[in-house]
């Protein structure tokens, strides 16, 4: 009767559900560690789609050639330039369940992991793989903390690049090929653009504003002054910083009002669409222009942020060796590929960045990349703030919060300067 029918239905559905769960239990046991004689490596990144994934795939291809007996397990978690990934990574490291290797920005971003004794010193691997000769000395210095190195960089990106739309510039009566010696000159150009009704400077949500801030600091304080901000040599409360922040304020006044709701591609899109004249972004923006089918210098132009010519504001994606990694040999194999010439060549060609090695094959690389490679070899190198090279995570978060407060009008310049000083000093 009714009760039996009811019970049968419920039982049937329950059985079906458990059967499905049973299927899943069998099939989803992580990477299948019983690969016979094979080893594996779980690679934790936030490269889940687009050019990053293309880069990762290219790297995996080289990896399979160099280490056919080690299986690559993709542990990518997407979202927010790694915010979800970092969140999960923290938990896993705390819980004693680290991946075999994880992606992190080279430089101060690693400091917390180093302090917590969660990453291994890989300087012996540098010796083994010959990386100390292949990487530029400047870079090795930046990667060394108290005599130890904790990651292997896969690429180099530059953060202090201006991208511009020549059509919009011409409309404002400006020469697209013009070079601006300082921020003041640049501001004059922006005023001209403003007259035409277009947005002089496009920017997006807070982290891109921090990117802009760091280039302004770099321009006004010079390379040494900028580095001094992080080492404590430069006075945050000083008048030089105040001047720089005033420049920043002026520049923000030239930006699009909907900035906080945009992500960086949207701001770049405004250049592509001819709505804005200038945009400051790292050189991953090159991929946007390529995808739009644009060619320099007819459709777009690029140059270092005015006042920072001769300075390379660097950031690097790198891989680490966590303490207690389940498959350390697999991890080391991965690190070897990451640091190898073939690996770096394949990866960077697909991703649009430049190799950290000086001897990788870059003949096939695009035009912008070639200029970047020359720049990297010749210019003064400084560490990017917005991308984890200059300061630890907590400091960057505080600076970001202070910047958001300032650009939304919730604090004035003096308070902004104070908060920045407090963040950097902490």
């Amino acid at each position, binding site marked *: 009767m009714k009760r039996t029918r009811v019970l049968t239905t419920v039982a049937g559905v329950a059985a079906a559900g458990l059967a499905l769960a049973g299927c899943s239990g069998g099939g989803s046991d992580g990477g299948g560690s019983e690969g016979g004689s094979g080893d594996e490596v779980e690679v934790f990144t936030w490269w889940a789609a687009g050019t990053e994934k293309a880069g990762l795939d290219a790297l995996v291809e080289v990896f399979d050639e160099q280490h056919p007996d080690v299986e690559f397990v993709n542990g990518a978690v997407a979202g927010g330039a790694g915010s979800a990934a970092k969140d999960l990574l923290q938990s896993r490291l705390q819980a004693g369940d680290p991946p075999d290797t994880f992606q992190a920005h080279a430089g101060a971003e690693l400091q917390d992991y180093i302090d*917590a004794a969660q990453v291994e010193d890989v300087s012996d691997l540098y010796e083994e793989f010959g990386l100390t000769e292949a990487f530029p000395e400047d870079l090795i210095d930046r990667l060394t903390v108290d005599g130890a190195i904790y990651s292997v960089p896969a690429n180099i990106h530059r953060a202090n690049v201006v991208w511009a739309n020549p059509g919009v510039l011409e409309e404002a009566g400006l020469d697209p090929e013009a070079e601006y010696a300082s921020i003041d000159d640049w501001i004059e150009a922006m005023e001209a653009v403003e007259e035409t009704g277009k947005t002089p400077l496009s920017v997006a*949500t807070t982290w891109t504003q921090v990117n802009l801030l760091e280039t302004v600091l770099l321009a006004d304080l010079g390379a040494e002054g900028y580095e001094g901000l992080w080492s404590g040599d430069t006075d945050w409360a000083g008048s030089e910083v105040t001047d720089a922040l005033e420049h920043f304020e002026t520049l923000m006044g030239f930006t699009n009002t909907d900035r906080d709701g945009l992500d960086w591609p949207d701001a770049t899109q405004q250049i592509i669409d001819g709505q804005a004249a200038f945009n400051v972004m790292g050189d991953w923006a090159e991929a946007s222009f390529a995808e739009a089918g644009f060619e320099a210098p007819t459709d777009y132009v690029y140059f270092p942020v005015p006042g920072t010519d001769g300075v390379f504001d660097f950031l690097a994606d790198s891989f680490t060796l966590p303490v207690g990694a389940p498959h350390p040999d697999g991890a080391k194999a991965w690190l070897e590929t990451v640091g190898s010439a073939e690996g770096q060549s394949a990866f960077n060609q697909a991703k649009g960045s430049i190799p950290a090695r000086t001897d990788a094959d870059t003949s096939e690389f695009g035009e912008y990349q070639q200029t970047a490679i020359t720049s990297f070899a010749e210019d003064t190198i400084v560490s990017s703030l917005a991308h984890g090279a200059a300061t630890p995570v*907590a400091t960057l978060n505080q600076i970001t919060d202070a910047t958001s407060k300032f650009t939304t009008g919730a604090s004035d310049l003096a308070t902004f300067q104070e908060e920045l000083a407090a963040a950097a000093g902490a």
Partner: protein
Amino acid sequence: MKRIRKVGAPLLLLAPSLIVLAVFVYGLIAANITTSITDNHTAAQATGQQPTAFVGIDNYVGLLGSSDFQHSIMNLLLFTGVFLVGAMVMGFMWAWVLERPARGEGLFRAIYLFPMAVSFVASGVVWRWLLNSNQGENASGLNRLFQMVGLDVLQNNWWNNITFGIVAIAIPAIWQLSGYVMALFLAGFRGIPDELREAARMDGATEWQLYRHVLFPQLAPVALSALVIIGHMSLKSFDLIMSISKAANYQTKVPAVDMFVFKNSFDYANSAAVGMVLLVLVAVVIIPYLWWTNRKENAR
């Protein structure tokens, strides 16, 4: 012996749930409180590389005294207020519209419920577009829509406003959950026997009097449940803000976001403290509810 028998059997059936909750809820809350009264602000301390010390309520004092955190709480209260009122009004209105049997009721109901099926991980992008704050020439999103239908005057900068920006974020929240409130009220309406209405009509009551003296009192318990459930969901809202305005934006900071940012900065003690503040806020909402339920049932 009999007394134990009497208490034994129910407790035995409840035991699995009680044990599980003791661990996964209360055990974790205890762990959280412990963390929040230490000075564990760095990764090194978290893994024991550096020592941690107990600092009592220092973290709480610091948090509650900081103007940034106060701004977060203000935002949360504003958000909750608007969200609650909006969802209750919308939900009630839809239920009112559908409660008399009508053609196509099933279709209307399905449409009003559909937003519940879409998670913010998914719809976040659309809402970000819709709430774009550009006005006039560069408008897109809802501002553009207003222009297209001649309602230019309604344009505004949505969540890009320091004081009231958070109110704009309540719009997607209302969109998503009004359907559930509607379902609650609809069931409430359906639970009122028709005889009551007929009787009131026969007495010559107008529609308004019918609502005021017959229907509203019957719906009060439903409304209360809806308030509690939506209120607690609002206090937990995180996905919504992260997908629309992201973590760093000052305009829409709420404690849940602060908790996330602290954790991201390896500042576990402050993250735990914010979590406890949220828990206390939630308790403030539901303890009256529990007390009220208890009283009502004992009175029966």
